[in-house]
């Protein structure tokens, strides 16, 4: 019997013949923590009486969630991370470098076939470049940085076959929102997702990250894609490391196989307060919007900013609206400056904030007030997510957010394409 991508990577890294539901202890290629989870992991590291990390080149800590620090308490925690990083010689990304999930692939730290854990639930993002990456808690992170290993339950896999071509004005964000709406927020719990088909192959690697990033919003452990020539070219442009693509076997066993035709897909919006509360944009069009946000590990990349600039070029956002942009990394910000994209967005009325998580998790940089509606390119719209549990967060593609900023209402972006 053949193997899925998840089974292959976990077999290879554990040295066992790993099949779904087995438990294996596997070697980690990379371990990451962010500023919300690293301090507890450092505490666990010390309680474990550990002395050194397993390999400083394979451990990174990223200060992105509350960055730069908005509070004295947070500053102390950041300081602990800086101190730990300098004592151990691990990689530290300090304020302004960007969101962890943008940095790991962009800086060439992770490549196809890798096994990666991160103490952040959206670590599943790197599945888009054919790596098994998954989110864990702080104690797992500590065990990982001490031993370079972790136990895994080998997941079963749901295969999503996406046929057809996405219509103009409809993007990978719309596709993943639609899939989450279809299988629901716990539709893939304990499982790996594999995304295949023509519609996935057509996407750029940047657009693919958006899909793998949101695998956790259907409960999945990872969101894997088979690599292709685009993957190889993208990874080679970012990393010096050698790698080999890992493909699923023809006769691999799947828990479920779901098939879609995306040719008629409309732009999708996730309504408050759950990610699987999804509707075509037409159903919510006209809803008053007070604040728009383009950024995050889901949609803060160059391609996303370009799409927004295409819609906003030479125009102004609607009166009585606010528009926040957080490039997902310093490199993205520099590129967006060089291309004149930031100029266009700022002229249109954007407030550009530090590369990092920005207002996504509600720690700072744009907390909405009571009763306000926000449209965001992020991946979660839970009550209180952006820092106020009396605000309403809608999730959409960068195109839908940009189009909605022009009118101050949720707007179908297809007229711009």
């Amino acid at each position, binding site marked *: 019997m053949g193997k899925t991508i998840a089974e292959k990577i976990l077999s290879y890294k554990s040295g066992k013949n790993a099949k779904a539901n087995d438990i294996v202890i596997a070697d980690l290629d990379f371990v990451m923590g962010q500023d919300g989870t690293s301090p507890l992991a450092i505490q666990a590291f010390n309680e474990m009486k550990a002395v050194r990390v397993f390999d400083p080149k394979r451990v990174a800590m990223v200060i992105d969630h509350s960055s730069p620090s908005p509070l004295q308490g947070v500053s102390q925690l950041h300081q602990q991370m800086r101190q730990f990083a300098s004592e151990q010689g691990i990689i530290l990304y300090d304020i302004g470098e960007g969101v962890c999930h943008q940095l790991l692939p962009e800086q060439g730290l992770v490549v196809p076939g890798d096994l990666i854990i991160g103490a952040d639930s959206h670590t599943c993002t790197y599945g888009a470049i054919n790596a098994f990456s998954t*989110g864990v808690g*702080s104690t797992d992170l500590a065990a990982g940085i001490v031993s370079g290993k972790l136990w895994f339950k080998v997941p079963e896999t749901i295969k999503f076959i996406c046929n057809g071509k996405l219509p103009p004005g409809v993007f990978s964000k719309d596709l993943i929102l639609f899939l989450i709406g279809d299988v629901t927020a716990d539709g893939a719990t304990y499982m790996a997702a594999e995304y295949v088909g023509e519609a996935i192959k057509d996407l750029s690697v940047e657009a693919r990250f958006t899909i793998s990033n949101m695998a956790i919003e259907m409960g999945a452990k990872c969101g894997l894609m088979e690599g292709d020539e685009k993957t190889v070219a993208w990874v080679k442009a970012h990393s010096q490391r050698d790698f080999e693509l890992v493909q699923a076997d023809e006769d691999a066993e799947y828990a479920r196989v779901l098939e879609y035709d995306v040719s008629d897909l409309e732009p999708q919006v996730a309504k408050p307060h759950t990610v699987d509360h999804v509707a075509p944009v037409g159903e919510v069009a006209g809803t008053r919007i007070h604040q728009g946000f383009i950024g995050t590990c889901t949609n803060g990349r160059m391609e996303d900013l370009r799409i927004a600039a295409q819609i906003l070029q030479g125009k102004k956002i609607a009166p009585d609206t606010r528009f926040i942009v957080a490039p997902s990394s310093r490199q993205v910000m520099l590129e967006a400056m060089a291309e004149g994209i930031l100029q266009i967005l700022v002229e249109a009325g954007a407030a550009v904030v530090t590369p990092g998580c920005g207002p996504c998790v509600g720690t700072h940089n744009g907390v909405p007030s009571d009763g306000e509606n926000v449209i965001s390119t992020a991946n979660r719209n839970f009550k209180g997510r952006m820092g106020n549990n009396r605000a309403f967060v809608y999730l959409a593609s960068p195109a839908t957010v940009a189009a909605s900023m022009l009118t101050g209402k949720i707007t179908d972006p297809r007229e711009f394409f």
Partner: protein
Amino acid sequence: MYLKGKAHKFGNDVNTDYIISGRYKFKTLDMKELARHVMEDLDPEFYARIKKGDFIVAGKNFGCGSSREQAPLAIINADISAVIAKSFARIFYRNCINTGLPLVECDTDLIEPGDELEIDLNQGILKNMTRGIDIPITPLPPVMLKILDDGGLVEHFKKYGTFNLTEK
């Protein structure tokens, strides 16, 4: 591992914010203090009613949401001995094993609030004493039982310095 106590029942999709609200979890790392607020938004009297060893019993997808470990730690510090649910969110599941909180997956429709339960984790048996029925449970793999027996992953690492688990 043998556990005995009373059932406190909750519904489906209990997220980590309900287990311990963000109002508290960012404020303190004092887990005894956090424990006082466990499940507060779903049941303000909950903490006051817990007797040492009692169980949280819930529907599907218990523990969905963030990867923060304050959620299982608050439950442990409230003297709950295990969580019983139809299914668990994945990161929460790992965090429970790692922090030493036993989990039981079974058909919780067979348990009513206040039922007296007895669980033998090693044998994989749950007895509903009030109703006189045995409820089949999905047994925990030996690897997880070993971590639980050691008192969680930090204790396991203190003892062995790395993973020392029998693999399947």
